[in-house]
């Protein structure tokens, strides 16, 4: 099958060129099919989330996109190059398994990571000091990594992935192992990077991060991508939910409610109804309710959250796996 690349994706108000484009990526490890025909398009300047439970194929996908491993089938392009190593200077990467040389000084570790991407060591050290100062770690610049706390070492590695000022940064589970304070800092850093025009891709199994940060996501489950696109489009897979509160529980107006509407009694004695927004919108229903004197106390239309969208798209099993991982991961 011939793979066609060269697409543009609507990003914000413009048709942005693609930072990453992949079609039909397949990767097999022995008898295990880790990734099964994944398509991803990441516009330049976007914050793009790859969402899925552990073992879904997120890391393998990112490794293929970065050229760490080659796909068994399919094509990938990063800034139009099908060999990502050729543009290593444009890419920053934070792997899921964090690692640094324990006896290296923090600033040297940052400079070394820059040198791997073509930044001269001297310049790397200068920027390393600058970055460490900016992130409140200036005092740790000359400390060996083994003498830093886990969070500090993780920050050093993160800064090392940014020291050469890449146009694309790829973070594999960046929030993993961070406390709430540092998770917030990282979210702000990701937003700042995007504001500066850097494309950010990160994988996560915590939906809240993707929901807060991303304009576009790919949902991965079982090595496949059942959804890739704008977060709003994912949410729109589920009709908005209507919440109707009435003074009395029954009356002729009840005939107007859609079938399957759920009823509950509110603490004040009123009745609350939940049902999906009818296909023809809320206005015809509202007219009927008013005409038949339903005694409306309140009415709201709630858009589906990303979690509900994930359940609808990836299935109950994937959602349950994701929920249990999130519960383990959430900072106390």
């Amino acid at each position, binding site marked *: 099958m011939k793979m066609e690349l060269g697409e543009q994706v609507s990003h914000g108000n413009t048709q942005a060129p693609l930072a990453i484009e992949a079609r039909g990526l397949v990767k097999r*490890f022995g008898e295990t099919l*880790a990734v099964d025909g994944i398509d991803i398009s990441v516009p330049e300047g976007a914050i793009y989330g790859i969402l899925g439970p552990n*073992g879904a*194929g997120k*890391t*393998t996908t990112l*490794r293929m996109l*970065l*050229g*760490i*491993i*080659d796909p068994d089938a399919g094509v990938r392009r990063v*800034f139009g190059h099908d060999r990502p*190593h*050729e*543009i*290593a*200077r*444009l*890419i920053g*990467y934070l*792997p899921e*398994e*964090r*690692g*640094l*040389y*324990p*006896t*290296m000084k923090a600033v040297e570790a940052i400079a*070394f*990571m820059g*040198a*791997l*991407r*073509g*930044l001269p060591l001297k310049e790397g050290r200068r920027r390393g000091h600058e970055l460490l100062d900016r992130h409140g770690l200036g005092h740790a610049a000359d400390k060996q990594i083994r003498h830093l706390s886990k969070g500090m070492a993780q920050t050093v*590695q993160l800064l*090392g992935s940014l020291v*050469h*000022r890449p146009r694309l940064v790829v973070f594999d589970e960046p929030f993993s192992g961070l406390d709430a304070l540092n998770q917030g800092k990282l979210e702000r850093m990701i937003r700042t990077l995007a504001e500066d025009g850097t494309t950010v891709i990160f994988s996560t199994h915590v939906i809240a991060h993707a929901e807060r940060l991303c304009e576009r996501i790919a949902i991965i489950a079982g090595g496949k991508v059942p959804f890739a696109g704008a977060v709003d489009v994912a949410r729109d897979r589920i009709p908005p939910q209507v919440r109707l509160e009435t003074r009395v529980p029954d009356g002729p107006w009840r005939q107007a409610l859609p079938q399957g509407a759920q009823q509950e009694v509110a603490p004040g004695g009123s009745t609350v109804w939940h049902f999906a927004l009818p296909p023809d919108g809320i206005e015809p229903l509202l007219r009927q309710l008013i005409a038949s004197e339903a005694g409306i106390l309140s009415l709201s239309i709630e858009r589906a959250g990303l979690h509900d969208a994930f359940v609808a798209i990836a299935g109950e099993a994937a959602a349950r796996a994701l929920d249990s991982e999130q519960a383990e991961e959430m900072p106390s």
Partner: protein
Amino acid sequence: MTAARLSLFQAALVIARRDFVAVLFSRAFFFFLLGPLFPVAVIATAGALGGSLAETGRPVIAIAMASPDREAFIAAHEAVVPRLGSILPTIVPLDRPVRDPQAELARPGTRWTAIVSGTVQAPVLTGPAEAIEDWKGPVAIIAAQAVHGGEPLFPAVALTSVSTSTAREANGRIRTAQAAQTLMFMLTMLLAGMVLSNLVEEKSNKIIEILAAAIPIDAVFLGKLFAMLAVSLVAIAIWGAAGLGLAALAGKALLILPGPAVGWPLFFALGTAYFAMAYLLLGSIFLAVGALANTVRDVQTLSMPVTMMQLLVFFFATYALSQPGGWAELAAMAFPFSSPFAMIARAARDPHVWPHVLALAWQMLVVAMLVRGGATLFRRRVMKSGGSRVRPWAALARWRARPTGS
């Protein structure tokens, strides 16, 4: 910053520089440098003990002759010692008469192993049977000198020396070849293991993925190999300087070997080049093993066959030395892993230079292929999500159990 990537060698240099500095300034390297001191100390201690035991074990013969024969015998012993040296036993005069030599030898506390009694014209040697057979000749020479008196009986031999002889030169060069082979083998075995532990350490630090994402794995392998080679050369330079320093302190050369056929300067240059090749060949195999191994136990399991293979290769190269021009020498020169050892031996014996150019080119080609193979293995077997442990034997069993045919 432009998007142009680092070349393979620039990327390898980044890795090599980091590894070189990290290893060179580590405490482990200091202790590694001290490593050879232990075998040297053991050998020196064993040598000193051996010398002391040899001195203690030297036979002592008591002279139980009546005066003046006793004095004549002792004077004769002193006269012949400069000519015959160590073949003569140590003698001790007894200042009391011994009526029964056998009883004297059986007396507790006696420190002589035999007794010479009688006269200088008719000496009687009493002692253990196997010893007196050996000593009867020297005792007879001393007795003859005692009877004759004055200057030694045998004439002085005039000496005319030449710088060398063909047969002696050939034999000497074989000694040089053997010494070079052995030294190179020991250094290779001692130093190549560092590569293995280095890569396993890298994997346990989990930094390998950062490297693999930024530069080609081939560059990581090359960088590590060359860093460790440079560290090895530093170690050899330090050991060599220490050896020369000790030799200077001792006031003599520690090792005197006949000159190699290609001359000492070229021999040293070729020795360095062949050591580098032997190191890179073995190091690239160890790197591939390191790529498969996740734990120290894996490393031990996987590296043992490589070590045994290298030992066999060394024996083969040593055997080839005894078959100049034969099939064994040709095979040893052609087989990549024995080639550096066979070729350094050839440099000691044969003055032609062109075979070395060919051999070095061939060895470099094999190193390049092994590095590429190791990198491919690494990419295929290790860089997969979840870091599942590679079990080579299980993989082999699966391969053997695979369905055959179409």
